[in-house]
């Protein structure tokens, strides 16, 4: 029997053979790097991780990770991730996607995923635009963002992801910035290890359709306060948020969803019987 101690995983161990097709300069490259660093730091083996996504540029991320993955349908990443976690509670389930997929097409799923509090981590790479379909305003786009497709701006109040996640019952709420890979890796480790539903908004510039976002690196700043476990305090803080505070806002203590609560020893073999043809 070998007595050799297995070496600690490296970020490069989670690199798949598929090459990213994101535009050069896209913030999602750094999110991918941060995610690899986070799971390496946690010592998770590839077969212990599932990355689930919907549709959009950022939703291509499962293909670039060497672990289990599922590139699902538009806006439905969270139901898929929920199903995976409930069926395989031993896996670390990370759900990932963009602001259009998560807040518009999948907006309703976000509310209920927060409420259900299944132990998954939802990473939203927010670039305030639909990049894959050529630059339409998304739910997080500022009302006055002037573009050829929305001259003068949409005039519609944007969606505030942290406010919605907190109000809907997410057990961990944070914001990161893709241009800070080491800080993002730390927030991801915190999010993944925190029990229940963890929501992480990552500001990830779209350099092609939102070149103005190259300035984000000069606008983001560390949140001046420590995370709180008091939801009402977190709510007061997030209502005065400028959108560029980086850090963990809220760490709750709600018990994560457990599959068998209210059922007496419902074993897998019983489920097999139910579905026996």
């Amino acid at each position, binding site marked *: 029997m070998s007595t050799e101690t297995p070496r*600690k995983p490296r970020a*490069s161990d989670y690199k798949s053979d598929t*090459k*990213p*097709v*994101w*535009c*050069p*300069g*896209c*913030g999602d*490259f*750094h999110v991918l*790097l*941060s995610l690899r*660093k*986070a799971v390496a*730091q946690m010592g998770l083996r590839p077969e212990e991780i599932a990355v689930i996504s919907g549709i959009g540029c950022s939703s291509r991320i499962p293909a670039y990770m060497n672990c289990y993955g599922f590139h699902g349908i538009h806006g439905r990443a969270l139901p898929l991730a929920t199903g995976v976690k409930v069926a395989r509670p031993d896996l670390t389930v990370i759900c990932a996607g963009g602001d259009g997929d998560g807040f518009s097409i999948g907006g309703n799923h976000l509310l209920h995923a927060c409420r259900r509090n299944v132990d998954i981590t939802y990473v939203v790479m927010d670039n305030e635009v639909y990049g894959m379909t*050529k*630059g*339409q305003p998304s739910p997080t786009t500022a009302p006055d963002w002037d*573009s*050829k*497709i929305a001259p003068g701006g949409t005039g519609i109040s944007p969606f505030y992801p942290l406010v919605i996640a907190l109000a809907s019952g997410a057990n961990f709420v944070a914001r990161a*910035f893709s*241009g*800070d*890979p*080491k*800080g993002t*890796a*730390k927030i991801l*480790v915190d999010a993944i290890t925190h029990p229940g539903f963890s929501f992480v908004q990552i500001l990830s*510039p779209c*350099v*092609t*359709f939102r070149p103005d976002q*190259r300035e984000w*690196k000069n606008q*983001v*700043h*560390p949140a001046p306060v420590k995370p709180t476990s008091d939801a009402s305090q977190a709510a007061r803080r997030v209502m005065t948020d400028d959108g560029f505070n*980086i850090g963990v806002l809220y760490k709750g203590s709600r018990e994560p969803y457990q599959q068998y609560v209210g059922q007496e020893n419902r074993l897998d073999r019983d489920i097999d019987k139910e579905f026996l043809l």
Partner: protein
Amino acid sequence: MSKAPGTFSPSFSMAELLVHALAIELEAVQSYEDLTQQMKQCGNDEVADLFEKMSVLEAEHAERIRQIAGDIELPELAPWEYRWPGLESPENIDLAGVHYLMTPYQALTLALENEMNAMAFFEAAANECTDDRVRSLAQEFADDERQHVAWMQDWLTKYTPPDADWDYDPDPPAAID
């Protein structure tokens, strides 16, 4: 992003200096390899070749640091435990400066900036470290980076600065235009 005051303190032990030096080079290799692939994908082969050369250069430097480290046991640091002056290790390309139509001159300018950052990092370490052997090695690394700076400056003379309309794309990605 503004960093918290006083977070960069390059007063390293020998093992800390080596683990930081190795991380700088390995992250630079990764960064240049990724950029090579991205530029190839966009058909910008000239810049892709340049980034590929940079990745080879940084890999050679990483190997040299490994040899210097020899049997010294290097600490295993979490990504956020590295003490960088900025958000990333000094030789990581700033993605905000990358564009699919960028010219070799612009790519080399970014690379030059990285080498200067690395040189400044090691010079700061040489100034701050209290152990003479560590100071001496930090100075040696700074001198290596100074040599890279000179190479980048020399390479830059072989290219002309980009025209004003360098990013003009007759078939831009914004189909909505």
